[in-house]
């Protein structure tokens, strides 16, 4: 990911990490809180999970665009 400067070498690790952590939250925590009937916690998990997945997608697209144009 030849962006240069600080964010070069570990974006390759960080983006999948965000994606995987978001998916894990969505897959595991939401179900767990549904079983325990903890509504607020379930909603927060949902937000956090999608936030992480969204961030991963954003960074992936962003880095791809930067690679193409810079």
């Amino acid at each position, binding site marked *: 990911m030849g962006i240069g400067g600080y964010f070069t070498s570990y974006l390759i690790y960080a983006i999948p*990490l965000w994606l995987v952590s978001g998916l894990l939250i969505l897959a595991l925590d939401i179900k767990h*809180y549904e079983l325990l009937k903890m509504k607020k916690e379930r909603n927060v998990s949902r937000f956090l999970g999608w936030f992480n997945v969204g961030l991963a997608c954003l960074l992936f697209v962003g880095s791809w665009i930067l690679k193409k144009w810079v």
Partner: protein
Amino acid sequence: MENPRQITMIQAVAILISTIIGVGVLALPLFAVRAANSGAPLVTLLGILLGFVGLMIVTLLGMRFPNKTIIQYSEDILGRWLALLGNILIIAFFAVLTSLTAREFGEVVVTSVLKTTPVEVTVIVMLLLAAITTRNGITTFAYIHVFYMPILLVPVLLIVALSFKNSDVINLQPIWGNATGNMLPGILTIAALFQGSFILTVVIPAMRQPNKAMKASMLGMLIAGGLYITIVAATVSVFGSEEIKELLWPTLELAKATSLPANILERLDAAFLAVWVTAVFTTLFSSYFLTIHSMSKLFRLRDHRMFSFFLLAFVFIMAMLPQNIIQMYTIIQNFGRIGLGITIVYPGLLLVIAILRKKRGEPVRNQVKENAQ
């Protein structure tokens, strides 16, 4: 339903010991010697005393508010919005501390053991391990620390004891060091190694008898601090202060130079590193648990599980920000010293204000009556 208070005094001691003994153990003699040459054990002692002051303040606060963590009782003491600032600082500080610990671990592993592995991989593996383990409750947290504590203490004590065979007492003299005016930064750096003991703010509300928390703090500090002084004394007596200034990880070098009697086994650094990985895990586990548990209390949630994976990537990014080992250690030292403001000065302020405003928590809920412990 299981009583939420399950942690005994001995478990609290084990949590403290295994949290404090961590990644800093390798570089500790270097910091001490830079501050005071042969007065390194003295500087370590002073650093331990400062760390103990912080722990004592936190314990007194915890005993005053035995049902609440610092996130909650700071709101009672300071009011909602001032406490919010303090709480955010605490959470951010321990998140960064987790990242720096993971990075330091990664650097040691990549330098000494797995030389062709990218440092990112070692950092991610350790953080992932911590993230998975922190999904459990505080009782499991205590059990894990209790399980690992003897595995940490016994080999380290053994290796350090064996290293005294190569020691020369003259290396420890003069005890006061050579009148270097540099002691204070060194004392602060060493006190910063004890910041993990802040975990006690989360442990006390789950203790069976919170009034025993002071005993737990003293015992934990005595054992962990005693081990630190022993390691520094052993390293300085074996190598001498000038040689240590050339070594990045003097404790590791000490283990390399140590052998079992009659040379049955040499290069004990292999065994030492294996034990040290466990020590780092327990420290990382504690600081990560503190971060996510505090976040859950800040947002008034009943569980902290959801944050364990959420914070993972953010902590990883922070861990990868230092560009090399030198920059990493500079950041660790400066950040550690700033952190003393958050872990010692801020609780001190809270305690004083709580006493002045006559704020006290409710009596212990769900108290477990025990005859002896």
